[in-house]
């Protein structure tokens, strides 16, 4: 049985925080609103007080705990490597436990209940076409990210596809028998919003001859539900995916979404022994492509005269796990790309699971800072490796009245590969 850890299981982790305050320099939530309750150090102090029974689940406590993007920026710079993002997620589960799901993050409880959502959607309209939204399973992270009644109308959203990616392809696309077989874990973002990036991935994998399995039974990785404190949802999604991983035969599981990568490699292994054997098989698509010598193949293509300036945004969930070089290496090898580094490429875009839904104002502030760095870089395109980041970055750029377009690196890769 997949089981997420409880807050009390983090007792030692909490004690590791020495209150040095170093996280104040790196926490995007604190950067947007300079209140100690926003920063990792404050949240750890609050979680500690909750465990000791020194504080109730009062309004300010809930607010502070909701004001976290679970981005792990604090962790990556913390001298003691304290996983605040895990402590906050566990605290949210604790809150949901004690007060019910809907206490935390307002609408989360409602969106999970199929009927409820549909009614609200019918009443309030919403950012997405109702017909298309119906296609999204009730447990998909997208529902948590876009509980329609709470989505602000000035937000840029990608159109939902009328034919989800996984419905377009057979479960097995055979390749060269000497080459490895990979299971493509698509994630909700690519399946429903950015299917073209999924097509691009297939093109790249076909180019190098690997066999691809796209199991229809795979479901949302569960990361948005982690963010929402919805423990049961995370656990049941994990089990469904586990069954998929166990039923198929393959050498690697590839992801093209930083959040999915983190869900599969960071969240699942903490839920039970049975997940461990899959952790090492999960590879970000660019790590996989580099290992397969793909960058060298790209580098052999003739450089284009009319190169475009492209910069790279590090998704938090790759940066935290040290995946920073591979996506850049692919970008730099592309013949049409003139790569430029932006300042603070590794700072959070501001999406943060369900954060941007409930704190759109602060999320926008974080995004605005990022949009400024993008502008200063002089790039025309921003490439990244996560559908969530793509959506948020494009929204931030549009709000800043700028013209840059945000793409998945895979989209650029597909441009130069033969049909």
């Amino acid at each position: 049985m997949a089981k997420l850890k409880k807050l009390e299981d983090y007792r030692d982790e909490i004690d590791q925080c020495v209150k040095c305050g170093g996280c104040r320099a790196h926490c995007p939530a604190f950067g947007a609103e300079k209140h100690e309750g926003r920063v990792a150090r404050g949240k750890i102090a609050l979680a500690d007080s909750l465990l000791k029974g020194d504080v109730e689940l009062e309004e300010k406590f809930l607010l502070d705990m909701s004001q976290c993007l679970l981005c792990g920026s604090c962790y990556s710079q913390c001298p003691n490597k304290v996983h605040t993002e895990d402590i906050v997620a566990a605290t949210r589960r604790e809150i949901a436990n004690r007060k019910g799901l809907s206490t935390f993050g307002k609408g989360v409880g409602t969106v999970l209940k199929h009927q409820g959502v549909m009614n609200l959607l019918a009443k309030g309209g919403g950012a997405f076409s109702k017909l298309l939204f119906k296609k999204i399973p009730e447990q998909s992270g997208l529902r948590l990210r876009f509980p329609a009644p709470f989505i602000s109308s000035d937000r840029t959203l990608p159109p939902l596809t009328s034919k989800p990616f996984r419905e377009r392809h057979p479960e097995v696309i055979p390749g060269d028998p000497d080459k490895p077989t990979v299971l493509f874990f698509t994630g909700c973002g690519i399946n429903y919003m950015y299917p073209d990036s999924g097509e691009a991935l297939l093109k790249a994998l076909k180019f190098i001859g690997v066999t691809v399995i796209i199991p229809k039974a795979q479901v949302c990785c569960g990361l948005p539900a982690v963010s929402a404190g919805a423990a049961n949802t995370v656990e049941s999604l994990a089990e469904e995916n586990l069954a998929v991983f166990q039923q198929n035969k393959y050498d690697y599981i590839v992801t093209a979404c930083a959040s999915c990568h983190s869900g599969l490699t960071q969240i699942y292994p903490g839920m039970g022994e049975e997940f461990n054997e899959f952790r090492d098989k999960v590879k970000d698509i660019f790590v996989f492509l580099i290992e397969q010598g793909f960058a060298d193949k790209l580098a052999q293509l003739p450089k284009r005269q009319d190169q475009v300036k492209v910069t790279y945004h590090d998704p938090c969930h790759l940066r935290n796990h040290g995946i920073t070089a591979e996506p850049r290496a692919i970008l730099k090898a592309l013949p049409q790309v003139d790569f430029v580094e932006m300042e603070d490429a590794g700072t959070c875009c501001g999406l943060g699971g369900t954060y941007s839904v409930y704190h759109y104002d602060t999320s926008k502030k974080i995004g605005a800072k990022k949009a400024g760095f993008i502008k200063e870089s002089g790039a025309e395109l921003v490439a990244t490796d996560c559908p969530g980041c793509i959506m948020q970055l494009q929204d931030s750029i549009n709000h800043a009245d700028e013209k840059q377009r945000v793409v998945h690196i895979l989209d650029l890769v597909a441009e130069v590969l033969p049909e």
Partner: protein
Amino acid sequence: MFDQSIITKLQQISGKDQVLTDKADLICYSYDATQKQYLPDVVVHPGSAEEISQIMKLASENKIPVFPRGAGTGFTGGSVPTAGGIVLGLTRLDKILDIDEENLVATIEPGVVTAEFQKTVEKVGLFYPPDPASLKVSTMGGNVAECAGGPRCVKYGVTKDYIIGLEIVTPTGDVIKTGGPTMKGVVGYDLTKLICGSEGTLAIITEIVVKLLPKPEAKKTMLVLFDSIDGAAQAVSAIIRGKIIPTTLEFLDARTLDCIRQATDLDVPAAARAVLLIEVDGDREFLDKQVAKVSSIVQPLGVVETRVADTPEQSEALWQMRRSISASLRQVNPDKFNEDICVPRSKVPDMIRKIESISDHYQIPIVNYGHAGDGNIHVNIMVDEKTPGDHEKAEKAVFEVFQGALELGGTMSGEHGVGIMKAPFLDMELKANTIDYMKTIKRALDPNNILNPGKIFPSDV
């Protein structure tokens, strides 16, 4: 919890949103880097000196203690509200008001983060040298109040050497100016220097006038491994005698190197018993010559290996050894007592030997590193608080370390101040009449003893 009417008045002064009384909020302003926790009754984030003045008058009338707070990175509990009352958060005052490139002077508010200030002046080719390790988060107000120092201070001096004027709010609520934007000024007492390092007990700093330097063109980093701490210490004196003042002269002792060997895969040869990390700065064309000169000066003093960085990446790799300490120490033992004694430069080897014998006597690991150029040693007493007896042993060791430093003509604290952590030891270092002189000043300026009470002095002023 005091009267609701006080809260109402505070709200009238600073606005409702800036006055926090919920338990969750109070918890967030109850600690600093000492990890000591005391709950305040209320947290206020004022927006101007005028508001602070009104708050101090209100607090004086009602005898409410007030605890100024910057980023809360203090290592001695300076900002911790040990007596409840008001935490005065100064981070909203975060503007750089003026950078005067003609006179090399900047005027800033106290909530400006040190690194942000440095970055801003460096954009126009200027330089603010003091570099406490906490600079990415610490506030300039906190730096002035603690007179913070860092590696670069061996060449450039500490915070107070750059502060030439202040605007302050007195404990009774007057707003006054000290010093000013001139490089010279001898009219009246030097109140600016009195406030520098006063740990928030004499005034609340609301504006800071800072002296700046032209930014050195370039720097060069080298790492020298020695076969003994004596060699490293002699090297420091020899370099300075050779008329080179490096920007940085950081040392790591043998036990620190042992930790690094255990915890990392960095290349630390077994023969190395001490390391100096040396950085020189200045015009590019002189740097290679300076590095060559340093190398030849230290060569006869038991050098195991010298590494010189030619690129910023190589320089970063050399710094890696220094930066790996904190994480490596944690693998030795989870908890640490961290002291920052300072001894005359030439006495560093004697001090290290004293500390080694204290460590052996109590059977607890003590590792030392720090700023060899100014004799400032970070003494890390590593314990496991969960092991019975460890805490008491560490306390005894701390006492003996202080004693040792004082015997060598040193001081208990080079950088972190007294606060609540070193208050009990104050009379080890200062004579009774010196303490009295200080207390007289405190009493005169803060007759109600409401501004950061309980700090520096162990008993009532």
